[in-house]
């Protein structure tokens, strides 16, 4: 069975789960921009302007985890390993993970229309979200 396609008039469109996830994808993108901005400004405040190159700053920006500055010229890693940065990195990672796995589901939905397969993909993604979250947060917190 395939999902029947629906075309509803605007006034009959409610906020169903898929609409909320559509909105979540956009809002989580903005949230990730905010995390990136916080991380890059933080890096500049901590002296990245003279101790890191652009590629290093981008690497730190896309998840402010202390292991991402280990190979740079930063002399003291302690300010980069504070709980503030760990929490920011975990939030960034969780946002990216949910945004990304939901994106995978959207791509799969474009190519597989069978209802049973779509349910299977949803089960797999729903299991992957908590499992990878725990692994990722563990890695960030213990690094």
């Amino acid at each position, binding site marked *: 069975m*395939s999902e029947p396609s629906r075309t509803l008039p605007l006034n009959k469109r409610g906020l169903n789960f898929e609409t909320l996830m559509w909105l979540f994808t*956009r809002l989580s*993108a903005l949230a990730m921009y905010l995390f*990136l901005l916080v991380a890059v400004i933080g890096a500049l405040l901590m002296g990245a302007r003279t101790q890191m190159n*652009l*590629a290093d700053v*981008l690497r730190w920006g896309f998840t402010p985890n202390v*292991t991402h500055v280990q190979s740079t010229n930063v002399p003291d890693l302690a300010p980069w390993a504070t709980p503030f940065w760990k929490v920011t990195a975990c939030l960034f990672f969780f946002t990216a993970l949910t945004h*990304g796995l939901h994106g*995978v589901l959207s791509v799969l939905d474009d190519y597989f229309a069978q209802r049973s397969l779509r349910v299977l993909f949803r089960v797999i993604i729903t299991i992957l979200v908590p499992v990878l979250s725990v692994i990722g947060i563990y890695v960030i917190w213990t690094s």
Partner: protein
Amino acid sequence: MTLKRNIGVIEGLRYQGGGPQIAWLLHRLSGLGMVLFVGLHVLASFIGGDAGGLINQIYESWWFQIVVVFCALFHGINGLRITILDLWPQLLEHQREAIWAEWFVFLPIFGLAVLVIVRTALGG
């Protein structure tokens, strides 16, 4: 009954959608790429040892960094374009101009990052 399609993947790619289609395709590929990179990177760091070290060593190689920077930058900038146009739908009229603007933002940052990565790789 499955979805009836008259168009295969190859024919779909030949669809002459221009800039918006290229952006759509690259957004999709870079998104899938990042899920794969980030997922493997986190798992490799979790496993550690020789296998994990090997994967993270590949990640630190200069050519791989260029791929990752491309995915992250393009997905981010194109995603910002999608977000802005979707949340303010009256701007959708200017979507082609928005895609041009997007490349004007993307290319200098990406070029600079590639330059830095290659120069660092060459020992500069």
